[in-house]
C-alpha cells in the first residue's frame, strides 16, 4: 500500500510517497495564494504521476504543517514536531535536538529515538524565520539563495541588532549609507539571527547532536552563524526541506500497520 505524507507550509507544500518504508518519490510546490488543499492535491497528483500511479490507487494520507487542518482529503494529521522527530531519527539517528527554520516559523524539537519529547515553536514574529531573510534580500536586492555564499566573504564584524524584520530594513539601509560592504552586512544579519534563535534552543534544553532542517536549512550563512555561536558542527540531512513530509509518511505507515 502507498502512504502519503503532506507538509503544507506557508511558502512550500511538500509531498513524500513511501511504500514499505521505502521512499518512492517526492514533490515540492510553492504554496502561493491558493487554498492549502488545492496545492496539496496538485503536488500529490504530480508525485503519483512520477511513480505511474493512478488516482484511484489505494493510499493512506497523513498531513502536517501549518495548513494541515485544511487538507480535507487527508485521513489524519499530526503535529510537525512529531513528524520531524520520526524523519530525523531515520536520517540522522544521533540527533537529539532539531532546529526547523521555515518561511514563517522557527521550531525547536527535542527528541529521543524518533519521539518528540519537547517542542517550542515561534510563528508570531518574523524574527528568526525565513521571512526575516527574505526581507533582507529584498532591501539589499540580493537573491535569497545567494546571500549565504556572499556572507562567507565577510572581513569586518558588523552587528545587526534589530529584532524586528521591519526595523532591520532601516538599520541595513543606514549601514549601506555608511559604506559598509554587503558581505559584512549579510554576515551580521546571520549572526543576529543565530543570537535570536539561541534562547529558543536553550528553552528545550539543548542537547547534541543538533540537526538543522526546513526551508532555510540549506542557507550556508545561517548554518555557519549558528555553528559559530554554539561552537560545534550541526548536522544536515540529505533533503532538509522534505523532512516533515517524510516523517508524516512514516507515521502514516505505522498507522496502517497497526490497523492490520
Amino acid at each position: 500500500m502507498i502512504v502519503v505524507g503532506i507538509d503544507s507550509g506557508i511558502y512550500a507544500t511538500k509531498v513524500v510517497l513511501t511504500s514499505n518504508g521505502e521512499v518512492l518519490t517526492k514533490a515540492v510546490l510553492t504554496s502561493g495564494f491558493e487554498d492549502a488543499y488545492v496545492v496539496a492535491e496538485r503536488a500529490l497528483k504530480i508525485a503519483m504521476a512520477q511513480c505511474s500511479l493512478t488516482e484511484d490507487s489505494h493510499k493512506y494520507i497523513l498531513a502536517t504543517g501549518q495548513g494541515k487542518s485544511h487538507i480535507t482529503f487527508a485521513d489524519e494529521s499530526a503535529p510537525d514536531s512529531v513528524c520531524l522527530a520520526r524523519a530525523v531519527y531515520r536520517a540522522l539517528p544521533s540527533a537529539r535536538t532539531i532546529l526547523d527554520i521555515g518561511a514563517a516559523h522557527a521550531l525547536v524539537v527535542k527528541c529521543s529515538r524518533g519521539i518528540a519529547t519537547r517542542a517550542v515553536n515561534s510563528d508570531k514574529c518574523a524574527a528568526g524565520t525565513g521571512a526575516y531573510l527574505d526581507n533582507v534580500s529584498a532591501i539589499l536586492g540580493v537573491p535569497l539563495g545567494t546571500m549565504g555564499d556572499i556572507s562567507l566573504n565577510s572581513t569586518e564584524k558588523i552587528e545587526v541588532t534589530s529584532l524586528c524584520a521591519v526595523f532591520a530594513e532601516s538599520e541595513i539601509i543606514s549601514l549601506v549609507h555608511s559604506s559598509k560592504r554587503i558581505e559584512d552586512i549579510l554576515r551580521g544579519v546571520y549572526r543576529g539571527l543565530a543570537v535570536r534563535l539561541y534562547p529558543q534552543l536553550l528553552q528545550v534544553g539543548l542537547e547534541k547532536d543538533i540537526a538543522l532542517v526546513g526551508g532555510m536549512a540549506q542557507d550556508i550563512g545561517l548554518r555557519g552563524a549558528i555553528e559559530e555561536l554554539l561552537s560545534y558542527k550541526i548536522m544536515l540531512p540529505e533533503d532538509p526541506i522534505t523532512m516533515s513530509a517524510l516523517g508524516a509518511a512514516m507515521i502514516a505507515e505505522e498507522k496502517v500497520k497497526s490497523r492490520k
Partner: protein
Amino acid sequence: MITAGIDIGSLSTNVVILRDDKIIVSHNILTGPNPCETSTQVMQESLAMTDRDFSEDDIDYIVATGYGRVVVPFSDKTVTEISCHAKGNHFFFPEVRTILDMGGQDCKAISCDEKGKVTNFIMNDKCAAGTGRFLERVASTLGISLPDLGPLSLQTVKGPADISHYCAVFAQQDILLLKRQGVYLTDILAGACEGIVKRIYPLLQQLGIRPDFAISGGVAKNIGIVSRLEKRLGMKANIAFDSQIVGALGAALFARDFLLSGD
C-alpha cells in the same frame, strides 16, 4: 527669553521655538539618512520662519530629544523623549495623567503627575507592530497614502477583516491574501487599525489608565486608530493641534526651565 526644543525621531524631526510661554515657531521635516545634517537644516528653516529673522545666537537655550538627540551639534542639553512628551502634553492639557506617544518606530504609554512629571512608562521599541511603521507598510501594500488610511478605515462595508498576525511582515502577507480574495479595501484597513489597537491596548492596561488621556506622535493624526482606541477605552483622547510637535515642545519647555533655574 527665547528657548527651543528639537525632537529627532526615526521618521520626522520637529522644532518648537518658544518666546517665554508662547510658541512662535513649530516646524517639522522628514529625518534624512544623516540626523546631524537634518537637525541643522530644520533649525535653519525654523529660524527663517521667525518674525524677526533670528539667528542661532538669539536662542538662549536649546534642548534636544528623540532617538537622535545625541547627534544634535548645537544643543545645550538632552532630555529623553518620554519626559518631553509628558511635559508637552501637560502644557496643552494640564489635567492629563496618561499619555500614549505613537511614533514612527516605537510606542510608549506614559503616566505623569499633576506637574507633568513622568511617574511610570512602558514602551515597545523592539517590534514594528503598533507603530507608524506598521501603518506605512499597510498603506504601501494597498497603494494608498498614509493620510487616507484612517478615514477610509471608518467606511467599512462588512466590518473589519481578520488580520490575525500582529507581526508587520506576516500581516502584510495576510493583507495580500485578503486583497486577492476580493475583500473590500476599507474592511482590510479597518482590520489593520483594529490590529494596532489590540496591540497598543495591553501597554495602557499594564500601565493603568487614569484620566485625562492624551495621544501624541504622528499616529495620533490617524482617525482610524484614535477613534477605535477611544471606543476601547471608553474615554476621550486629547490631541494637540499638531500631535507631532509635542515632544519638541516639551524639550523647549525644559530649555526654559533649565534657563530659569540656571542649570
